[in-house]
C-alpha cells in the first residue's frame, strides 16, 4: 500500500495529468507517466493530501493500453525514492 507522504499536495488536471508538490522544499513533479486510474483521492485535509495508490487489476495508461504490474511497481518505487510516496505494508 502506498500513501502520499504527509505535506505533499496533489493536483489532477482535466486532461488526466497529475502533479505533486512539496510546499516546504518547492519540489514539483509531473505524474504524467503514472496511470491515472491508480490515483483515488481519499479525503483532503487543509494541511496534507493523503492519496491512496491502489493496485488495480485492469490498470490502463493514458492511451488506454493495459499497464503491467511491474511497470506500476517501478513507477511507485521511483516515487518512494523521491520521497513523494511512503510505502506501508498492508
Amino acid at each position, binding site marked *: 500500500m502506498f500513501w502520499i507522504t504527509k505535506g505533499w*499536495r496533489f*493536483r489532477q*488536471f*482535466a486532461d488526466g*495529468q497529475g*502533479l505533486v*508538490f512539496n510546499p*516546504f522544499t518547492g519540489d514539483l513533479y*509531473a505524474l*504524467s507517466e503514472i496511470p491515472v486510474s491508480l490515483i483515488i483521492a481519499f479525503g483532503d485535509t487543509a494541511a496534507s493530501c493523503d492519496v491512496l495508490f491502489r493496485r488495480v487489476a485492469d490498470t490502463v495508461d493514458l492511451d488506454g493500453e493495459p499497464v503491467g504490474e511491474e511497470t506500476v511497481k517501478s513507477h511507485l518505487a521511483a516515487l518512494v525514492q523521491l520521497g513523494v510516496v511512503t510505502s506501508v505494508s498492508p
Partner: protein
Amino acid sequence: MPSRLIKHDLIDLRALSGVVLSAPPFNFRVRACAGPLGKAFFAAYADFERSDDSAFVDFELKIRPVRGLRRFVRPLISLEIDGSEPFDPLPAAQAFPLLEWGMNWCVTSSANQYLMCHSAVLAKRDLAVMLPAPPGSGKSTLCAALMLSGWRLLSDELALIELHSGKLVPFVRPVSLKNASISLIRDRYQSAFLTVPVVDTLKGTVAHLRPTKTSVDLARIEAFPRLLVFPSYISGAQLDVQKLGHAAATVEIAKNAFNLTPLGVLGFESLCRVVERCDCFVLRYGRLDEALAWFDLMQNQLLAKHYAG
C-alpha cells in the same frame, strides 16, 4: 490628482520629494541626485502619470553619488531603496538601468499578495498570453515585437498573478532590450521609442523601449490568461511548435516563479489555476515574422473557440 509627466520635471526629479511615478498597481517615488537619469526617465515614462505627495507611495528609490575621491575619477552611483542599498554601486552612466532593476527588485521582494513569475504578458482583444522564460531566450525581443505589432503590453518581465482569481494584473513598464535586439527593434519599427543605449553593463548593452500608449492607457485592466507559450529563439531554426500538457507546463512555469515556495500551497494552487485555463506550447523560432504570424493565428483560433461557446 494625477497629471502627465512633462519635461521640465527634471528639476522635480532632483528635488527633495522627487517625482511620484504612477506605474499601476504601484507608486514609486523616484529621486535622482546624480547621473544622467532624467533624459532616459522622461523618455521611457513619457505617457505615464505622476501622482502628487498625497498618494500612497509603495516604494522610495533614490539614486545618489557615492562619496569620496572616486567621484572625480569615474563617478559611481548607488541606489537607495527605502533606506537600504541592496546593490553594489555602478558607473553613473548606468543610472537608468539601475533604477529599472531597482524597481523590479522592490516588487519581487515585497509584493507577495501576488504570485510572481519571470514572464512577459501581452493581450489582444481580451486574450492574454504569458511568455515565461529565463534571460537569454529572446523573450524581450519577441515581447517588444508583439507590442509594436498591436498587442497590448501587460508586462515585459514580471507577471503578477492575483492569488485567488488567477487574473493577470498588468505592471506596464519600459521593455528592456539587450545588445543585438536593440538595433533589430529600432530598424524594424519606426514608431519605436528607445532610450540611448547604455554600454558595459553586466548584461551588455542595454536600452529601454517606451511602452505603447495603448498599453499605458489600459494599464489597470486585468486579463485572464488563455495562452501559455515557452519561447526560445534559435538563429536559423525552423518554426517548431509542441503542445504541452498542463502538468508539464506547470513544472516549466514553476521554474520561472519567484515566490512559489514562500507562498507554499497558496502559490501552487494559484499556479495550477492559471495553467488550467491555458493552451500551452513550446515555441522554437528562428525568424521573428514566423513567430508573430503564429501568435496571430493562435489568437484568432482561440477567439473563434471563445465565441463558439
